[in-house]
């Protein structure tokens, strides 16, 4: 297929040291089953799945253990065959307390055949394919975990003309998507074709950063359908963010507060594509993924195909354990990942990496007042004014920050990364966004109760 350079590029962004060489050369290793798997029932954005198995039940690989609760939710499947031992409330990588289903593998790894393979997927209707994607519990594997079945089913009236496939992997250190593109090129490509059929998209852009020439090369060799091209993005963070990526590939700005569907685009991660292919062609639900275990504190950084529910500790041991005592363990990449409080955290559908940082990266937190250098303002990919927003938030003026559109911030971290005064900018914005969300919810609750009161009074 055709390879083109991205015609546009967003303003701002940063160039953190890539550090991808730590793990980019190591092919993904399929791990043996551990003694216990603790599968979180919320691995996605939206409502946690509802447990549908009980302690003592025998499950096979692919059996639903948690079923989607509501429109924005996703099924959770058993990643192997075994016995449900318990349900435990444990912290998720993002720090929330989530119910985990503890499964003791029986070693057989017996597959359930609940979902029949669609060998003839090309003759299936989009509705059937969407139903399969939802049934297989597929969510966006780039990090946010938005249920894919919902994303590829835009509300009527929103025509999708372009499918953007996100293979940018702009986060430093991480190489899981890179390895997946190298090792599962065909599966990713089939997933793309399935999704294109569902969406009826005329165009497909496979966006890959220029620092992955081998992946670009592999995709360029594919005999492609009309309207598909590989778009080579300049290596700059955050090119993997969907709004910035749409702009780089097509020059559209997704309106503030809007979704990619508003400009006729859907952005999906390459890992999601491969999962879609597995679900449709093999009837295999999403229960494992590529995970980079990397960082200076890991003895043998590498990539692994991990089942959901494996502990970080297990994966770190598979990577040779710690070479030095880690100071920070991050779920995800160093720019947007979550620092976890212990290695006893369990892999989810969105765990792209386990990053173990040593003391070189973990400085004593001491921030000094803003010196007005304006670097944060020039690196912000949303062209916000972090320095001004932070000033407002420090004065507890959340409305002031809202007027500066703090809600548009997607916490990419470019501002904090560049701040010479080490100011906790992202932390401020996260707090402000939290307060705004809370206020919105309170307002809605108040309105609901007022309506309710009016109705009751009216009926009397």
């Amino acid at each position, binding site marked *: 297929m055709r390879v083109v350079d991205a015609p546009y590029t*967003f303003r701002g962004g*940063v160039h*953190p*040291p890539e550090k991808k060489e730590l793990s980019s050369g190591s092919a993904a290793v399929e791990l043996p089953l551990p003694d216990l798997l603790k599968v979180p029932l919320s691995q996605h954005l939206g409502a946690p799945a509802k447990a549908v198995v009980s302690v003592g039940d025998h499950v096979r690989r692919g059996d639903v253990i948690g079923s989607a609760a509501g429109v924005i939710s996703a099924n959770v499947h058993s990643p192997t065959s075994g016995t449900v031992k318990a349900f435990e409330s444990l912290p998720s990588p993002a*720090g929330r307390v989530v119910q985990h289903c503890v499964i003791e593998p029986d070693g057989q790894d017996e597959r359930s055949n609940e979902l029949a393979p669609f060998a003839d997927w090309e003759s299936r209707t989009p509705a059937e394919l969407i139903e399969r994607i939802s049934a297989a519990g597929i969510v966006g594997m780039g990090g946010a975990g938005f249920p894919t079945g919902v994303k590829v089913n835009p509300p009527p009236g929103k025509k999708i003309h372009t499918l953007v496939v996100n293979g940018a992997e702009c986060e430093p250190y991480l190489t899981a998507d890179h390895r997946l593109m190298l090792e599962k090129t065909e599966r990713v490509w089939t997933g793309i074709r399935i999704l294109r059929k569902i969406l009826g998209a005329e165009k497909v852009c496979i966006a890959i950063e220029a620092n992955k020439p081998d992946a670009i090369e592999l995709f360029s060799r594919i005999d492609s359908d009309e309207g598909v091209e590989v778009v080579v993005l300049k290596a700059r963070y955050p090119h993997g963010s969907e*709004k910035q990526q749409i702009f780089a590939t097509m020059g559209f*700005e*997704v*309106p*503030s507060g*809007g979704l990619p569907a508003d400009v006729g685009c859907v952005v999906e991660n390459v890992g999601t594509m491969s999962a879609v292919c597995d679900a449709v062609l093999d009837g295999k639900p999403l229960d494992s993924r590529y995970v980079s275990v990397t960082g200076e504190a890991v*003895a043998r950084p590498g990539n692994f195909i991990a089942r959901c529910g494996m502990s970080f500790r297990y994966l*770190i*041991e598979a990577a*040779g*354990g*710690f*070479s030095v*005592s*880690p*100071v*920070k*363990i991050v779920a995800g990449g*160093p*720019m947007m*990942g*979550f*620092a976890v*409080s*212990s*290695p006893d955290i369990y892999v989810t559908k969105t765990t792209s990496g386990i*990053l173990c*940082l040593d003391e070189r*990266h*973990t400085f004593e937190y001491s921030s*000094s*007042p*803003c*010196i*007005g*250098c*304006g670097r944060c*303002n*020039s690196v912000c990919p*949303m*062209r*916000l*004014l972090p320095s*001004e927003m932070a000033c407002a938030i420090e004065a507890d003026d959340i409305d002031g920050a809202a007027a500066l*559109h703090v809600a*548009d911030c997607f916490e990419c971290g470019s501002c904090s*990364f*560049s*701040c*010479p*005064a*080490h100011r*906790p900018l*992202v*932390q401020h914005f996260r707090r402000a966004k939290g307060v705004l969300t809370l206020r919105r919810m309170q307002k809605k609750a108040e309105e609901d109760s007022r309506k309710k009161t009016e109705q009751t009074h009216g009926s009397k």
Partner: protein
Amino acid sequence: MSDEKGAVNEPSMLVTSSSPHIHCGTSVRGTMRDVLTGLIPPCIAAVVFFGLRALALIAVCTAATVITEYVCRKMMNRNNTIGDLSAAVTGVLLALNLPSGLPFWQAALGGVVSIAVAKQIFGGLGFNPFNPALVGRAFLLISFGATMTSWTESDWKRVERVPEAGISAPAEVPQPGYDVVMTTATPLGEVKTAAKRGEKPDFVYDSQMRWKLFIGDRNGSMGETSVLAVLIGALWLLYRRVITWHIPVFYIGTVAVFALCLRLAVPDMAMPVDFHILSGGLMLGACFMATDMVTNPVTRQGQVIFAIGCGILTMIIRCVPGGAYPEGVSFAILIMNAFTPLINKMVRVHRFGEPKRGKAV
């Protein structure tokens, strides 16, 4: 299970701070160190052209600012901030804005005012509305006008002429009496006094004079005279990304455009464009003072407005014939400093995904 493998040592304490977990490595101290490094060429030029007294004056000012910073923080019961080197930067910059013959005690007093009045009263680095070194200089200029404007004897006006030029060389020798009052003026001072009398300045602005202004062989504040040295320092700051090109280019560009307009309007009175760029403190001001990140706007657009304002004010102060001061760079920057919060409020950057003006949301 970890002990058996040997390689896994249980992490004792994990840090769980907010993302991002890496940093580009810049710091306030590093930035200030870069500025100090950038100030080395002007300091060398000062010593070359004004002798060892220049070095002593730089030392006195820096000592005064650093000690004042230390004492102020101590008195206010706040953390010691001399380590961020910003006080040292203020000290060196203040010294470079003084004439080399200034009494040491006056220079030291300037340093105390810079830090205590212009910086620490407002809460220290980051909260000062005005450039501390320029406040110190303005204070000294108003308080000690005589010493602040008596420039060390320099024969910058003497131009070696080739005999066949036909003009009598002795014309350059100053008249008795005239010497005492006038030979100590700066090029801009000459121009201003001449303009007040409605005359042309009594020096010839030719290529030799240009060269003297460029390398710094002239009267003036210690750090401003050598355009060459300032440029080398500015290139360093650009290379280290402490400053961007916007403020120097727009500042100097505005001065050039203003000077060009004057030249076109009153060709026989106005000085050439390059004279305005090479003389006075424009280069030092545009590269080291107007670029002070604390006191200039936080957006590119704001910085451009700021720089244009500085340029216009500089030229107004320089060229209005009845004005009191021959040079306007420091006052222009101080006045624009006062506008910085307003510019920050005023400038709105078109954010990503913002609906175009006039279009319905």
